[in-house]
């Protein structure tokens, strides 16, 4: 009887060893993070309806002539990190034309999210059920960034690092401005 128990325990021990070996193998495929390192890559948000001019524009948001809307979801881990980046790490209170769209199951959840992550210093709109984002722009992914120029959605991005996103958008804006200036000079 004791032999049977001992063999059963050995089988369990072998299973534990195998399980840890599998976990370790999986872990080697995931880069180890040290400190608050965030993926700086900015990727296109393929599903967004580029070129669309929204039929409805929530009050309190920046003018869609020149606006960037950051889409955050209350159930998304990355979105919580983005919220922290906006407020304190490193903080982007000086970003003019930027607003936060909080997509949540209910208005109460959205308000709780804004309160918890101290987003009250930014223009914020709560999109209950994600209805506005889905119907107007076909967006289902977060964290996302929607860029508006002249009242239309001109680009949409998936991101994790707010500073990288901001740098990328400023570079695009700078290049566009230079192209416009060049075109004006040639016209003259």
């Amino acid at each position, binding site marked *: 009887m*004791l*032999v049977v*128990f*001992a*063999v059963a*325990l*050995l089988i*369990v*021990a*072998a299973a*534990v*060893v*195998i399980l*840890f*070996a*599998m*976990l*370790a*193998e999986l*872990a*080697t495929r995931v880069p*180890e*993070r*040290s*400190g*608050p*390192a*965030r*993926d700086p890559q900015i990727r296109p948000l393929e599903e967004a309806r580029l070129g669309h001019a929204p039929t409805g524009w929530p009050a309190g948001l920046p003018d869609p002539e020149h606006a960037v809307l950051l*889409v955050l*979801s*209350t*159930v*998304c*881990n*990355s*979105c*919580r*990190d983005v919220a922290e980046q906006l407020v304190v790490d490193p903080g982007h209170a000086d970003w003019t034309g930027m607003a936060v769209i909080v*997509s*949540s*199951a209910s208005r109460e959840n959205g308000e709780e999210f804004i309160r918890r992550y101290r987003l009250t210093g930014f223009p914020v709109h709560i999109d209950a*059920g*994600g209805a506005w*984002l*889905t119907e107007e722009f076909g*967006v*289902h*992914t*977060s*964290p*996302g960034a929607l860029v508006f120029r002249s009242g239309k959605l001109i680009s949409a991005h*998936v991101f*994790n690092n707010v500073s990288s996103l901001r740098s990328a958008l400023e570079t695009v804006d700078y290049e566009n401005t230079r192209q416009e200036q060049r075109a004006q000079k040639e016209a003259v």
Partner: protein
Amino acid sequence: MGPADWILLAANALAAAMLLTAGLGKLVSPDPVRRALTEIVPGTVRTRTVVRGFALAETLAAVSLLVPAVRVPAAAGTSALGVCFVALGLRGRFGRSTEPCGCFGPSSRRPLGWANVGVGLALAAVYPLNARLAPGMDLADYQASGTLLTAVGAIALCLHVNRRLIVRLLWPTRGVPAGNEVP
């Protein structure tokens, strides 16, 4: 049980635990060992099958050490494996190996070196010990006690080898995975 029985039991259980943990780790993940061996002996070990075959030999030796009927031949096999580890450890040490050996699975970060030589010498001593001593206890008691000690030893060794992974899982650092669905 006299002191000699305890020594034999403990030595065999410890050897079996080490071989079992190492063998199962290599069976699951043979690539680290393959890379480490390719670094010190280029051109010899190219396939996962070879490494997994070696891992299977380790596992069989571990289990066989606990079976009284095949204890002595298993001890001979264990000592042969020990001699291999000594040779590879020395080759890794003097060849200035840098590749993690993967001896107990992917969590083994140390390159082949003195630690492998030490483990190899310990395993090499298993056959002389088994040839000299025989269990004075009931063989069923030897098998049961040895198996229990091996199971506990394997779990303890596994937790020790994977301690960094455990810490990483229990206390994750900041930095979160990619985004999710908008509800």
